[in-house]
């Protein structure tokens, strides 16, 4: 009966995307593809003489499934959306930019930049690889935005369209640029002033001709002007803000130091009583700016500014008197009737009007079994329709829906938007007071002993106390820490979170997707043992389906061959139907096969030729190294598990977590959030690890919220850090590393205080000369910076950041 089979001799990979080819029938000449979608892309490229794409890197494509539901780009026809996306237009040429997360290799760049060869309406494409971003110049008369987006999607490069405020983007860029301008100008001034001040350093300028002293002084002053008025302006602004809020932040002594340096230098140079300290001042500003720049370098392609809106389509299809119209999601009103196609998200709470609905709420609850509501029943935002298209009537606006309530709470980060850590602010309180006190005492002493030296001593104290080195400790220690953490697969929003992670006391895990892997292949068959022929039948069926369970079964039987089937039919949310040599095969849910059984999730029942054989069940696979991680974490932190699932897994969980770990099952997203809130009210500092939108509320509420993800571009809104799924086992070491970093900063503080003390020794005696200042300041900065970088690297070694062994 199985004569027409095509043997799968060895595993072969798709010429386009590199996935394993489960069906050997999809091929063109000697090139095999995993699915028809990939083959289609190949054909498009081949027709356009762009097959070179495959020679640059092997299997460069993004997986393209023909059954894949193409997104609806209809909203790109809306004028308002166009205005947001178009960066420039003069009628003939229009420039737009898209973000394309699918860009991953040099072949991608090659292909995308050759788009003009495929369509005459495209003039030029420029890819930014790191930002995963393209700028495209098109003729709108020949290709509309919508067509362009569809063209990109047909090649496997689906543009991710976000309506960011154009103005905000521009302002961000200008802010970045002004940092670099400031860095450039202060570096320029610093270098030249050093050169001109050099003669001063030897024997108090005895080699200097008398006329050169003032000349060099004035040039220094001119060069110092832009540094004082432009480059250091942000420190004055920040210090002023601090004083207004009655807080002595680190910028207060810095600004005071810069101000005194400048005023005294102007005085000395103009009155020709000395060479001034312009060299120290520019050096100081330059080092400080380098420090800020180092700390603020962020991950280019990752945007932490995501919010829930990014998960919903921008536009929806509205039904008006039987006709469809594209409107923006934000314009959806109560009572509107919307058309929802297969695979689209429900944008707001609604009522089912027409059609058979299969709503998959996995996005919201983590529960993957779709439900099939009756006509007229209430549907919630965030559910995904599987199957035929339905019509719904909106009963609550988008912003009022249940899902949105989770985010309604105030953002915990909004209040403390300061870049600096809590620690430096605490230290600087004391530091500033001590400096001011010392200056006052020195002034008092000299006013009694020798009034002529009083001003000199006071200003010297303020100059030498300028906490340049102190201000550099944190940017360099944490900045380098961020870089090292990135190496092990954790991406922090900014440096503050290193400190926060170091103080975590409780670690809360979500279950599904966080500690279990979604790429589960652990499949168990319950029933009589399957014969070889039955296995062939099952595999022949599932290779035609893209459902995750079908894929799982097909991978499970990777060595089994396949045969031709006829009358194949896939009923979404129900199962598969097909015939092999006249024998009817049915696979799918219990309802579909008409079996009375307890409802279970992730189960596929099998019926061949009218005989019920049993069912497949996907097991939960726990991520590698979980047990070690738990044992490690338990030593220092409290651990809890909360999940939206039933308690079916409790015994397995206990095996990993031990008996004394708090666990709670069947929690709603709101429950999770409230639980975190309760913990934090009890002075616990909670680190929450989650993966689904159902955890988002809890993540945003927690002290440190980490989103765990197989794909770092698909993380949650409101998270503070993203952890690559493979790096979960390293979490224990990551926490230890952050703890060590905080200690290193403290050591570094001590070093910089020591330098300040030495400087003070000269300053209070009124014998501080420009040369001492000029040596002491760079020296202390360099010591602090090199200590910061060296010590964090050593710590990284200690905690195995460089080993690729994830256990």
């Amino acid at each position, binding site marked *: 009966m199985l004569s027409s089979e095509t043997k799968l001799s060895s595993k072969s990979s798709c010429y386009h995307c590199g996935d394993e080819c489960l069906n050997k029938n999809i091929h063109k000449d000697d090139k095999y593809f995993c699915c028809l979608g990939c083959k289609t892309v190949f054909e498009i490229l081949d027709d356009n003489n762009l097959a070179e794409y495959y020679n640059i890197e092997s299997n460069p494509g993004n997986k393209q499934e023909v059954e894949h539901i193409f997104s609806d780009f209809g909203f790109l026809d809306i004028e308002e959306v166009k205005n947001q996306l178009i960066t420039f237009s003069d009628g003939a040429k229009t*420039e737009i930019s898209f973000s394309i997360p699918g860009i991953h290799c040099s072949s991608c760049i*090659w292909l995308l930049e050759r788009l003009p060869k495929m369509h005459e309406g495209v003039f030029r494409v*420029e890819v930014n690889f*790191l930002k995963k971003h393209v700028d495209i110049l098109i003729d709108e008369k020949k290709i509309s935005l919508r067509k362009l987006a569809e063209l990109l999607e047909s090649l496997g490069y689906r543009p991710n369209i976000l309506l960011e405020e154009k103005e905000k983007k521009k302002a961000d860029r200008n802010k970045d640029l002004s940092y670099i301008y400031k860095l450039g100008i202060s570096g320029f001034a610093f270098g*030249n002033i050093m050169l001109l001040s050099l003669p001063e350093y030897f024997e108090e300028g005895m080699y200097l*001709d008398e006329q050169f002293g003032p000349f060099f002084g004035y040039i220094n002053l001119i060069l110092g002007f832009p540094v004082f008025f432009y480059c250091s302006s942000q420190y004055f602004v920040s210090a002023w803000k601090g004083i207004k809020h009655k807080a002595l932040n680190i910028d207060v002594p810095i600004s005071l130091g810069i101000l005194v340096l400048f005023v005294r230098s102007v005085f000395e140079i103009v009155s020709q009583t000395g060479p001034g300290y312009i060299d120290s001042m520019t050096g100081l500003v330059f080092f400080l700016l380098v420090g800020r720049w180092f700390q603020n370098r962020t991950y280019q392609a990752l945007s932490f500014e995501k919010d829930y809106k990014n998960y919903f389509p921008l536009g929806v299809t509205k039904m008006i008197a039987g006709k469809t119209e594209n409107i923006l999601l934000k314009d959806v009103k109560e009572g509107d009737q919307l058309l929802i196609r297969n695979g689209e998200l429900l944008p707001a709470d609604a009522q089912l009007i027409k059609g058979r609905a299969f709503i998959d709420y996995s996005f919201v609850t983590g529960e993957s079994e779709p439900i099939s509501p009756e006509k007229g029943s209430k549907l919630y935002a965030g559910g995904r329709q599987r199957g035929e298209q339905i019509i719904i009537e909106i009963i609550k606006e988008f912003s009022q829906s249940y899902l949105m309530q989770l985010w309604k709470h105030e953002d915990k980060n909004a209040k403390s938007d300061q870049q600096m850590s809590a620690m430096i602010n605490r230290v600087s309180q004391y530091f500033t007071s001590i400096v001011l006190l010392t200056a006052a005492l020195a002034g008092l002493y000299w006013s009694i002993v020798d009034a002529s030296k009083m001003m000199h001593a006071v200003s010297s104290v303020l100059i030498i106390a300028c906490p340049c080195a102190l201000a550099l400790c944190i940017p360099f220690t944490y900045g380098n820490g961020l870089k090292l953490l990135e190496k092990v697969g954790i991406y922090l929003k900014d440096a503050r979170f290193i400190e926060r992670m170091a103080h975590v006391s409780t670690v809360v895990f979500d279950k599904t997707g966080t500690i279990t892997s979604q790429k589960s292949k652990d499949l168990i068959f319950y029933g009589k043992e399957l014969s070889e022929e039955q296995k062939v039948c099952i595999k022949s069926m599932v290779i035609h389906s893209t459902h995750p369970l079908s894929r799982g079964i097909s991978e499970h039987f990777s060595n089994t061959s396949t045969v031709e089937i006829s009358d194949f039919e896939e009923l979404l949310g129900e199962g598969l139907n097909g015939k092999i040599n006249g024998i009817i095969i049915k696979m799918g849910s219990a309802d579909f096969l008409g079996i009375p059984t307890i409802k279970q999730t992730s189960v596929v029942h099998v019926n061949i030729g009218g005989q019920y054989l049993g069912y497949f069940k996907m097991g939960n696979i726990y991520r590698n190294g979980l047990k070690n991680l738990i044992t490690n974490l338990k030593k220092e932190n409290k651990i809890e598990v909360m999940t939206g699932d039933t308690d079916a897994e409790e015994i397995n969980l206990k095996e990993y977590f031990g008996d004394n770990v708090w666990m709670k099952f069947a929690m709603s997203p709101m429950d999770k959030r409230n639980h975190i809130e309760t913990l934090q009210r009890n002075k616990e500092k909670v680190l929450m690890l989650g993966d689904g939108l159902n955890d988002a509320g809890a993540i945003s509420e927690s002290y440190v919220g980490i989103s765990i993800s197989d794909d770092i571009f698909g993380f949650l809104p409101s998270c503070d850090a993203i952890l690559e799924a493979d790096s979960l086992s390293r979490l224990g070491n990551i926490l230890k590393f952050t703890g060590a970093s905080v200690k290193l900063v403290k050591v570094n503080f001590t070093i910089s205080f020591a330098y300040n003390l030495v400087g003070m020794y000269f300053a209070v005696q009124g014998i501080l000369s420009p040369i001492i200042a000029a040596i002491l300041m760079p020296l202390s900065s360099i010591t602090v910076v090199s200590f910061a970088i060296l010590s964090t690297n050593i710590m990284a070694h200690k905690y195995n950041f460089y080993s690729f062994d994830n256990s």
Partner: protein
Amino acid sequence: MSALFVLIIISLIVAGGFLAAFLWSVRNGQYDDEVTPSIRMLFDDNNSITKEDKS
């Protein structure tokens, strides 16, 4: 010695020119993307695409 005055001023003007060039290149977006051009230049292409200027 007065030659030194002139020379120092000239040297500062030259250095200032380089600073201006640096600022201009930053503004012009030459540092916006440091990775893609390095990959792009390795492609062998018989008929290279001509760049059109943004107007």
